[in-house]
């Protein structure tokens, strides 16, 4: 007998075979002496085992058996209970990351400075009666201030560019 048939017969006996498959089993057993014997053998064992498990009892007393269970329950409930944290520690738990974040923000602000704007160390004021024209070239980093005396300009009718070394005009190099 092949194993498939053996397992099929067993499943049929245990009521685990689908109804469609189970219908033909009766004929199969009737026509096969070996199958018939196997079914009888399995059936006999099944009947013998039913309700005949040897009863065993706990070898310990009620109190002793329970004491270990109780201890274990208490031990595990203690380990699951949340630990009481001091109030100060709770504050510290929140303040520590905040302080860290604030420090980081400060460091970032210091590290990333806005681009420096051109600054002038000194703004020269001209004397009364003088005219001033300022030319500022940021790419060259140069500022040229033209000073003109209107009275003199009227006499010459053209503005005169003054070189820095004359003292009449200032050229500021940044």
């Amino acid at each position: 007998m092949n194993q498939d048939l053996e397992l099929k017969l067993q499943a049929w006996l245990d009521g685990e075979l689908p109804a469609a498959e189970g219908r033909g089993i009766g004929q199969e057993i009737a026509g096969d002496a070996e199958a018939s014997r196997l079914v009888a053998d399995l059936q006999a064992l099944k009947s013998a085992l039913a309700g005949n498990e040897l009863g065993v009892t706990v070898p310990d007393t009620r109190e002793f058996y329970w004491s270990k269970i109780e201890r274990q329950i208490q031990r595990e409930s203690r380990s699951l209970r949340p630990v009481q944290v001091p109030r100060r520690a709770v504050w510290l738990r929140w303040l520590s990351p905040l302080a860290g974040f604030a420090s980081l923000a400060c460091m970032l602000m210091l590290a990333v400075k806005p681009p420096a704007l051109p600054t002038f160390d000194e703004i020269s004021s001209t004397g009364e009666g003088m005219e001033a024209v300022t030319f500022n070239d940021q790419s060259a980093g140069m500022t040229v201030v033209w000073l003109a005396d209107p009275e003199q300009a009227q006499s010459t009718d053209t503005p005169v560019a003054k070189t820095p070394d004359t003292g009449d005009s200032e050229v500021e190099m940044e």
Partner: protein
Amino acid sequence: MSMHLDRSALTDVDLVRAAQKGDMVAFEEIVARHRDKIYARAYSMMRNEDEALDLSQEAWVKGWQRLVQFQGDSSFVTWMTRIVINLCLDQLRKQKRQRAESIEALEEESGGVERYMPVINPNPTAGLERTELRRRIDRALAQLSKEHRAVLVLHEFEELEYKEIAKRMGCSIGTVMSRLFYARRRMASLLASLKRENAE
């Protein structure tokens, strides 16, 4: 003692309700009522008194911790039995991992020598007194491998279906069928030899 008397008149359902509210005295009463059954199931699967004691006690601890999950779909003792069975199967899996796979184990998986045994007739248990029959069944069970004994116990004594056994044992239904067939043939063979021993 008065502690026990206070709760002994209550039904299992009432005790479980009280225990679910945290009444440990009620839980102790349930343990006292059903400890033998839970221990017996652990013993039938492990065949070792110490292991059975440890696992049955562990099952009660888990039962207490999961009491809120018990909805009363089955009886409380059935629910507890399922817990102890799962613990035993976990333990068997651990033990199987620990021991090296032997040729014998491989043979057992596929049926081994027992698959080719002739059908045993007449019935080896016929005409035995119930006490003697139980004793012989117990002796024969002790000689099965742990895996085969587990399948047989779950099917014959716990009346679990193939599908349920496969799920609990983490194997296929085909493996369950094969193990069950082998276990039955081996049991029949062992019972027959025990009968012969007694006759001699």
